[in-house]
């Protein structure tokens, strides 16, 4: 029989037996063997593994003194040399979940398999979704033993190099990747089964976790519009007639710069839209300014509503653009505007 794997367990101050909320600032410390719920973990591991130590820390300590906490926990991991780290489960406790996530990352940095457990909406997941492997739990600590069982099983699977199946099958919180699968039933059969189950109040499993885009903190407001330098950007596919740079009508990976010096308005003779996602007849035969209101902005500039217009117009096509391309293009444009002390941007999307 092979040697039992060495497992280190991470618990917060409450489950680690130090105290309740009043001990939330307890520093990182080590207890010997399995502690509290760790005993259920040991039972789940059976002969396959031994909980050699339990790292305990206060939730507030870990989330507020993160650098010190990580240093201390890291040192303990280096000393204990575990094969597997099990953190939590944290259920829906957000600070605990974040701490568990950090501990898992520390372990993974050291090449150690790490598994945690928490509720799908826990802050630990929302912050570190793609970096941790978390068993999906409910919000109730009464699930402790079965959760630890799932965590142990998953950890051994990963340690053995086994490939994990889909999140819904293996019971972990989705990590952000989506992959093709071959179902046993046709799509419309699955849809009707899901519908009838839902109506009957029976369990069902959606095939998609709706994840949100990144949160972008808003920029501070312009203090004085009259004194502002404004840049113009459009994803309406506007290009000089003839499309000299060959801007594509969809899935663009590039934006192009066009000079606005001495240009007071976009004319139908000089401009066109190559956007492939809507009818561009009005822009191309009546007025391109509808997709980039240069005429109006210039008029406002003359009347002092803004100080001036940035002399370069940034143009791309917003039609099925890959999110990563959009991020990159936005970053590049922002970098130039920032260097040139532009105060604000008008971005027209069609």
């Amino acid at each position, binding site marked *: 029989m092979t040697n039992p794997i060495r497992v280190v367990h991470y618990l917060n101050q409450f489950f680690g037996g130090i105290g309740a909320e009043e001990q939330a600032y307890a520093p990182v410390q080590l207890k010997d063997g399995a502690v509290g719920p760790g005993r259920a973990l040991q039972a789940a591991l059976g002969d396959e593994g031994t909980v050699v130590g339990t790292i305990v820390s206060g939730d507030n300590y870990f989330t507020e003194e993160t650098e010190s906490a990580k240093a201390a926990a890291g040192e303990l991991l280096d000393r204990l040399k575990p094969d597997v780290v099990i953190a939590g489960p944290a259920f829906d406790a957000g600070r605990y979940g974040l701490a568990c996530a950090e501990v898992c990352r520390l372990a993974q940095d050291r090449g150690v398999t790490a598994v945690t457990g928490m509720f799908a909406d826990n802050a630990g997941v929302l912050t570190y979704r793609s970096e941790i492997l978390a068993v999906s739990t409910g919000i109730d600590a009464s699930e402790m033993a079965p959760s630890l069982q799932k965590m142990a099983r998953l950890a051994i699977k990963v340690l053995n190099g086994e490939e994990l199946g889909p999140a819904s099958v293996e019971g972990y919180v989705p990590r952000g*990747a989506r*992959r093709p699968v071959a179902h046993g039933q046709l799509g419309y059969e699955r849809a009707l089964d*899901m519908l009838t189950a839902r109506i009957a109040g029976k369990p069902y499993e959606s095939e998609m976790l709706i994840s949100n885009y990144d949160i972008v903190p808003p920029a501070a407001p312009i203090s004085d519009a009259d004194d502002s330098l404004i840049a113009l950007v459009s994803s309406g596919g506007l290009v000089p007639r003839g499309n000299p740079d060959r801007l594509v009508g969809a899935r663009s990976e590039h934006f192009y710069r066009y000079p606005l010096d001495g240009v007071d308005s976009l004319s139908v003779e000089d401009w066109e839209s190559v956007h*492939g996602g809507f009818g561009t007849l009005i822009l191309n035969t009546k007025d391109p300014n509808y997709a980039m209101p240069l005429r109006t902005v210039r008029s406002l500039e003359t009347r002092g509503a803004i100080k001036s217009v940035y002399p370069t117009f940034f143009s791309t096509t917003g039609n099925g653009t890959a999110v990563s391309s959009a991020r990159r293009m936005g970053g590049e444009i922002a970098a130039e505007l920032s260097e040139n002390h532009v105060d604000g941007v008008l971005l027209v999307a069609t």
Partner: protein
Amino acid sequence: MKLEMASFPVNDIVLGNRTAWSDGKLEINADELVDLVMQDPQVAWADIQVARPGDSTRVIRMRDIIQPKVKSEGQGTTYPGISGRSVDTVGQGRTNRLTDMTIIPCADMPRVNADGSQIWGAAQGIASREINFIDMSGPGAVTPFAETVNLCVVMEPEGQPYADDWNRVIRSTMLKINDLLAGATLGLDAPQLDTFDLDRRDDALPNVAFVPVLASGEHRFGPRTSLSTDVYGVGRLTQPWLLQPTEMLDGAVSGAYNENFTWPIMETLVPYMCSRHGIDFNFSGCIVVRSNWESQAEKQLMANRAAQLAVDTGVTGAIVTTNVRGQRFLETVLTVQALERAGINTILMTEEEDNENGTAPPLLVSAPEVTTVVSTGTGGIDATFPAVKNVIGAREPEAHWFEELPPIHGRYGVSHTHDYYGFGKQGYLDY
């Protein structure tokens, strides 16, 4: 409504001297069919070819795909309202259909219309037709059309018509062939007769609706264009339509929107739901929502009206589907949201966006009410499409169509399967 569906299976199409169906074989007179097509002076050249399952054949330049069917009893005509056909309400009486086969008109599409509007893909850089074809064998033979005997009508126009005009010729040709072929079954005993009696309801079962969101071509080509999916021949942007499911079985909703064809709209989810009527639920109706409205207020209004129709119909569950991604997907999300807010259990079935290695969300836009989703994947195909012996769809297909074609990475605007109604087993799951 109650509809009897008489099915005549077609295991093979054989060339002969007449048009006749007998015991699973459809005999056709290819010359007669070509003559019929050439009756229209706007057609300069036509050819009839058959693509069979398992053939080393690739079909290209499909303009639509339909199952041949005609009314044998009851009012109206199948595929009503298009090409001057009657707009009488269908879905009752009896319909004869040739199953396991399709009619596929194949032709190149002109780029412009008389008013200067350009068709999809005409804008530089988009080569959507390069990923739209049907392989009849090999690892890429994954669509339902790899399993049907496909009668391909390859056509070339006289002169240089506008896109809309040529599209009308294609449609009317397709329907002439439909009427001729399906008409050959009139008076014959059907090997299979199914009765869809949707008037009979079981009060113990829940009422459910099918809510397809279908793009209209009006925003691009005007209200009267034929380049749209139609309801009784009307493709323009309208408020939602409430149809009986049997009306859809008779082709009340038909017409290609770019590469989104007729067949999947009516031959997949709808017959399946009809077959479960009285067993798992009462199939109360189909609410057709038009998309491609140009302002958010309009999109919201249509979603609200769709939900109201669902409430008025007394359903407690709905399946919402979509077609074509992009900003018109917003109608779909708003419809799901409105239905859920009205207290109706709603399933969304859709293709999804490219995951971009875990950095991009699966839907362009979403809402908290979109909780229950069936995904039919990104539309991509992981395998290489092998070289083929035959290419059907052009008088002289370009050489590259015969060669090996690379795998297709599914993403917005790049879907090979176009599986919006769940006809396949492919999907995506979270990892």
